[in-house]
C-alpha cells in the first residue's frame, strides 16, 4: 500500500503517426499524495487535458503506466472511472433537462445509492437548490460550472480532476468556484487541477507541476518561487553609494545586493525576519532611506522563466 493516490510513470501520449504526430504528453512521471491538491500548470496545448483524459481512463496512453486510487489505467478502467470525479474542460449538461434531472442521471450511471439525497446535498452546497427544476439551458456559465462540479462529486470520488475550473467565468463566479475548491481541499480529497491561471495555482495548490508536454518543474508554489529567484527587497536611497551595497553584502543571509540607479536591490530568503537588520545597517552607514518595498516575484515569473527556457531548448 502506498499513501499515493496517483502514481504516474513515464506516461506518454502521441496523437497521429509519422510526420504529423503530436507528442502531447512526453514521459510524464509524478506522484500525488492522498489529500493533496496538485496543480498542473501550463499554457494552452501543453497536454493538460490529454493527461487528465488518460488518468480518467478516457483515452489510452501510447506508453507508460498510471495507478489511480489503487487501480491501473488500461487494466481496471471501470474501477478507475468509479473512483474518479471529473470536471471536464467543456462541462456539458443536457440543456433541455432540469439541473436535478441532469444530476440524477449521472448519479444513476455512477451507481449512487441514495440518488435524491446526494443530488440535494450538492445542489444545496453549490447554491443551486432553488433552481433545481429549471432547464440547464437557462443557466449562466457560472451556474453550469457549479452544476458540473456537483456532478463530479455526486459519487463521492476519492480523486477529483478539475480541468480549468475557472476559465471563462466572470471574476465573481470564478471567486465562488475557487472558494469551493478551497473547501474541497479541507475535506481531504485528492485533487489534480489543470490551470493556466498562476494566481489560482498559487493559492489553491499544495504542489505545482509546470508542464509543457514534459514536466519542467515540480514543487510547492513557495519553493518554486524561492528556488529560482529568492525574494527581492528594494531600498530607495537619497544618494546611491557603492559602499552601502558593500555594507549590506556582509550579512550572510543576503544572497546578492546591487545598486541600480538610486535603488539598492537585495536578494534574500526571509525579508520579514532580516529587513530590520538591513535597514539599521544602512542608516548607521549614513544612508537616507526614502522607501522600502518588495519586488514581488510571482509564480508567473517562475512560469515565464521556465517557458522561456523551454522555448530556448527547442529553438
Amino acid at each position, binding site marked *: 500500500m502506498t499513501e499515493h493516490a496517483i502514481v504516474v510513470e513515464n506516461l506518454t501520449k502521441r496523437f497521429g503517426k509519422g510526420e504529423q504526430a503530436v507528442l502531447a504528453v512526453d514521459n510524464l512521471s509524478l506522484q500525488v499524495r492522498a489529500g493533496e491538491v496538485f496543480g498542473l500548470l501550463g499554457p494552452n496545448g501543453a497536454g493538460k487535458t490529454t493527461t487528465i483524459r488518460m488518468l480518467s481512463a478516457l*483515452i489510452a496512453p501510447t506508453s507508460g503506466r498510471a495507478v489511480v486510487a489503487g487501480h491501473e489505467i488500461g487494466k481496471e478502467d471501470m474501477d478507475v472511472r468509479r473512483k474518479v470525479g*471529473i470536471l*471536464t474542460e467543456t462541462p*456539458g449538461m*443536457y440543456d433541455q433537462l432540469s439541473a436535478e434531472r441532469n444530476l440524477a442521471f*449521472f448519479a444513476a*450511471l455512477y451507481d449512487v445509492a441514495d440518488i435524491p439525497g446526494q443530488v440535494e446535498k450538492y445542489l444545496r452546497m453549490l447554491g443551486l437548490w432553488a433552481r433545481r427544476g429549471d432547464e440547464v439551458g437557462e443557466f449562466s456559465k457560472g451556474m453550469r460550472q457549479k452544476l*458540473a462540479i456537483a*456532478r463530479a462529486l455526486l459519487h463521492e470520488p476519492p480523486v477529483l480532476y478539475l480541468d480549468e475550473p475557472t476559465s471563462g467565468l466572470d471574476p465573481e463566479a470564478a471567486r465562488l468556484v475557487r472558494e469551493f475548491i478551497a473547501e474541497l481541499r479541507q475535506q481531504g480529497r485528492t485533487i489534480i487541477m489543470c490551470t493556466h491561471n498562476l494566481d489560482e495555482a498559487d493559492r489553491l495548490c499544495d504542489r505545482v507541476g509546470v508542464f509543457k508536454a514534459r514536466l519542467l518543474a515540480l514543487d510547492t508554489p513557495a519553493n518554486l518561487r524561492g528556488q529560482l529567484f529568492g525574494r527581492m527587497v528594494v531600498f530607495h536611497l537619497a544618494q546611491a553609494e557603492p559602499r552601502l551595497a558593500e555594507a549590506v553584502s556582509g550579512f550572510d543571509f543576503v544572497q546578492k545586493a546591487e545598486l541600480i540607479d538610486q535603488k539598492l536591490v537585495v536578494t534574500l530568503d526571509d525579508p520579514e525576519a532580516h529587513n530590520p537588520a538591513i535597514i539599521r545597517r544602512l542608516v548607521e552607514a549614513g544612508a537616507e532611506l526614502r522607501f522600502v518595498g518588495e519586488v514581488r516575484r510571482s509564480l508567473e515569473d517562475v512560469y515565464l522563466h521556465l517557458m522561456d527556457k523551454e522555448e530556448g531548448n527547442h529553438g
Partner: protein
Amino acid sequence: MDKVWVMVRKEWAEVFKNRFVFFSVAFMPLLFIAIPLGVLYSMRGASPEQALGLSEIPPEFMALCGDLAGADCAQFFLVSQFLMLFLLMPVIIPVTIASYSIVGEKRTRTLEPLLAAPISTLQLLAGKALGAALPAVFVTWGAYIVFVIGAVWITGSSVIAAQLLKPLWLLAIAVVGPLLSVAAVSLAVMVSSRVNDPRVAEQISALVMLPVLGLFMGQTFGLIQVDQSVVVWLALVLVLVDAALLTLAIQLFQRETILTRWK
C-alpha cells in the same frame, strides 16, 4: 442492463422535448393511419377500376387475390400498398430520434462526462439504440392495430381484416419493422458521428427508406409482388445487413474515437 435503461429514460426525457422529434413520433403515425383509412373510406362501394384510377389491377395481383373479387380485390391491392407506410415508420422514427440524440450529445458536449462515467460503450450504444428503436417499434405496432380496427370498421367487411392479419403483414410488422429500425439506428449512429446538423444526419440516414420505397414502387408498376416469400427474404437479408451495420457502429462507438474524432 440497469444502466442501459437509465440511458434510455434519459434519452426519452430529453429527445422528446424537441418538437421535430415529438412531431415525427406522435404525428407521423397518425398521418400514416389517416391516409389509408381515408382512402378506404372514399372508395366504399366504388368499382375497382374507378377506385384505383388504374386501367386494371396487375394480373399477378389478381392471382394473389384468390377468391376475392372485384371491389374487395381492389381494396386488398390498396391495402397492400399501405404496408409500405408501416415499414417506413420503423425507419423514420428511429433515424429522427438517434440523429437528434447523438448530434445533440455532441452539441451540448455531454459526450465526455458521459464517457467518463463507469458505463461500458456497449451499454451506451445499447441505450441510444433502444431509446430510438423501441418507440418506433411500439408506435408502429400501435398504429397497425389502430389501422386494422379502423379498416374493418370502415369497410364493414371482415375480408380486409383477414388479409391484414395474414402472416405477410404480421411478419412485416413484427419482424421486418424492428429489423429495419436496427438498421436505421446503426446508420444514424454512424452518420451522426460525422455531421453536426441533426437534420443532415436524419436525411442521410433516411436513405434506409430507399429499399422499402423501391420495393413498393416495384409493386405499383407490377414489377414485383410483395408477398410472403418476399417478406421472408427481406427479413433474412435484413438480419445480415443489421449484423454488418451494428458491427460497424460498435467499432465506431469507442471511447477514444468518440472523444477525439467526433467533432
